């Protein structure tokens, strides 16, 4: 194969793959970012993601509308977030331990209730063709974009704006940075954290819906490959900034698309190694950003991670 052609094929495949793989990362990361900005870590988002994927598939199958599936996934995510925040309210409860418990709980009930939905086919989310102008079928295919990806970008921009320019955004940041200050201002700290965690759960649920209703686009027990957990690393790497969350999600997405992209031009050697790229990236980013004292400076002051 011509080297130039191979390269452009890989780039096209990586671009398409990045756009596809990015979306769940983006939603979970934005959800986690929102929760952490309120001063709590929710490690249960992996469970929320899987449960969201299952619910979305089930509701899409039952109602025939994939968008109802997305909404249902978000609502179940909201409930999972509420559950996390409610348990964390109890005295002496550690948010990280609760998160791990809820991660196992979420995946557990998703597998339990999801058994009957492995076989049937549910209606998928549509995609929008944005690549006609390129005149290159490979890029046309790569630029088949799911509306959720665009919604995710809009959400990141909106959150960045809202954290700076709305009263709620400021109050959220106060709560995450100094519980004492929030109390002194008379804000209900626990309620704010509950809402932030619940809305964060909603986002993670929507991210799960993308997995089962678009890419890979079916419900099975091996659907999530740890996106929910990697999103925690991603948020630290993005230093709790929504726009940087978007960039970081694109980076993770591109790393995730590396294996399939190389396979598309016939490079099969080291397939599993390239598929592991996102995990290796996570590892290195964690080492890099854990050592980085700058990351700690930007961290919300009330996070148990930094205290």
């Amino acid at each position, binding site marked *: 194969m011509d080297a130039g052609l191979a390269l452009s094929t890989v780039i096209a495949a990586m671009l398409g793959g990045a756009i596809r793989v990015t979306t769940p990362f983006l939603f979970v990361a934005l959800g986690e970012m929102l929760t952490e900005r309120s001063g709590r870590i929710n490690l249960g988002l992996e469970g929320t993601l899987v449960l969201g994927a299952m619910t979305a598939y089930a509701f899409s199958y039952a109602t025939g509308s994939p968008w109802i599936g997305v909404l249902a996934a978000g609502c179940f995510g909201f409930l999972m977030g509420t559950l996390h925040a409610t348990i964390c309210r109890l005295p002496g409860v550690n948010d990280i331990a609760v998160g791990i418990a809820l991660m196992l709980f979420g995946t557990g009930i998703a597998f339990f209730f999801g058994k009957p939905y492995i076989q049937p086919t549910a209606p998928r989310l549509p995609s929008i063709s944005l690549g006609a102008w390129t005149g290159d079928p490979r890029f046309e295919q790569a630029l088949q974009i799911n509306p959720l990806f665009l919604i995710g970008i809009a959400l990141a921009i909106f959150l960045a704006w809202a954290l700076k320019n709305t*009263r709620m955004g*400021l109050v959220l940041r106060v709560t995450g940075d*100094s519980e004492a*200050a929030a109390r002194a201002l*008379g804000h209900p700290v626990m309620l704010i954290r509950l809402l932030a965690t619940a809305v964060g759960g909603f986002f993670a649920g929507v991210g799960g819906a993308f997995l089962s209703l678009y890419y890979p686009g079916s419900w099975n027990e091996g659907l999530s490959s740890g996106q929910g957990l990697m999103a925690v690393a991603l948020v630290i790497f993005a230093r709790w900034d929504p726009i940087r969350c978007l960039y970081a999600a694109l980076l993770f997405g591109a790393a995730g698309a590396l294996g399939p992209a190389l396979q598309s031009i016939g490079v099969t050697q080291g397939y599993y190694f390239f598929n592991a790229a996102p995990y290796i990236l996570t590892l290195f980013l964690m080492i890099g950003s854990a050592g980085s*004292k*700058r990351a*700690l400076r930007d961290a919300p002051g009330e996070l148990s991670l930094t205290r």
Partner: protein
Amino acid sequence: MTGMTSERRAIGLEAVKMRKVFGGLVALDDVSLKVPAGTFHALLGENGAGKSTLVKCIMGFYKPDGGQVLVDGRQSAIANPREAAEAGIGMVYQHFTLVPSLTGAENLVVSRPRGSQIIDWKTEHAALEEFLARMPFRAPLDKPVHMLSAGEKQKLEILKQLFLDQRFIILDEPTSVLTPDEADEVLGLLRGMTKRGDVTVLMITHKFREVQAFADDLTVLRKGGYAGSGKVSETSIDAMAKMMIGDTQIRERAARVAHKDAPVTLDIAGVCADADDGRAAVDGINLKIHAGEIVGIAGVSGNGQSALVEVLSGQRPMREGQLTIKGADFLPSRQSMAKYKVFGLPEEPLKNAAVPNMTVAENIAFRTFDQPPIAKLGWWLSAGPMRKRAQELIARYRVKTPSADAPIAALSGGNVQRAVLARELSSEVDVLIVANPCFGLDFASVEEIRAQIMDQRNRGAAVLLVSEDLDEILSLSDRVAVMSEGKIAYVEEIGKTDRATIGHHMAGHGH
């Protein structure tokens, strides 16, 4: 509502027979306090005298068990800080309540009780500028608060109260984090505002100098009760001190023994160390301390003093530099500290020099537990000798503890400090590193501890004293060094300098 719609004037406040009981302890015993509108009132008292309790009852943090608060002569029931704010009473706490990651402007806007959901920054900034223009002092509004100096934060805290239209402002030890110049500036401006009748100020303090320079009236509390009050112009410092401490016996400090041509004991050469966030905290410190000398390090907190003490006591890695004791290399480890007789009284001793849940006897044995008679064969510990030694030291250093087997966390601050003192000073000392040794202690303990430090100096120890209390440094040191932004900005013999010069160097205006 931007805090400037109504032109509120100063309000007066009176607390009548306030009483607060915690468990069986009477923290506040029928205390009355009268602050007329437009005056500057100082509330004096030792730690534990009930100043904070009184103020917290006024602010609605505590529900008083008796008494009432009159605002402008009318009885007011203030149930929580929010109601206090609505009545026009605001408080500036000793520990800042600004949110570190938010900018000054964001902090002001978010502190407003009401406001529109979407913030129009253009109008807000214009309104804030207009507000600042009417104020006697400014603070930067566009930088995140964690980047501001302590003085700027303190000003912003006060501006916040004025922005919220609070006309009775309570200040809790407002100058403990400021340089003398900053303190004079801020208090002077507030004094001007009270004179114009814009605000009323109630300031908790223990600095007589500030009371004399800025306050109109004063009220003194002692052990939870009312001890006296009066006009500042008619009260001498001696009278204030007498009201504060009552008839407590204060230990006389030994006279300073002159040491001639003493050799250098501790040599700190080119020491650099990083703070937790990677920035340089200690940036090339050179200091020689002679035997029988106290070198006091003054400075506003957060200029690297704590990091320097942590380096010297082995709690923080040294990036560069060298420490020598009597000419020999010194690396702060337990072994070499024992070898070179290096001892220390770090700040917050319960956190830095004790294990809270271990007993007093165990805490006192930290330096000696692996040596005979407590340890046999180097590993078998016997509790008997450990307790016996602890009981001797408890008696000698007058540590008030239920028993040697009580957890050290159960002791009061002064007694934890005495227990640590007993451990650190009971053998021969060559180098003594002391940081804010008297912070939060009562008069008697303060004098006791200062006398012990002076004794060690007179016996020939090289003492490094880090303190945020300039009076402590002025009264104990032979030489003064000022730390500013991780560097030594100034060193001078105590006889050749004064408070003002040191203050200028603390503020970084020494050159």
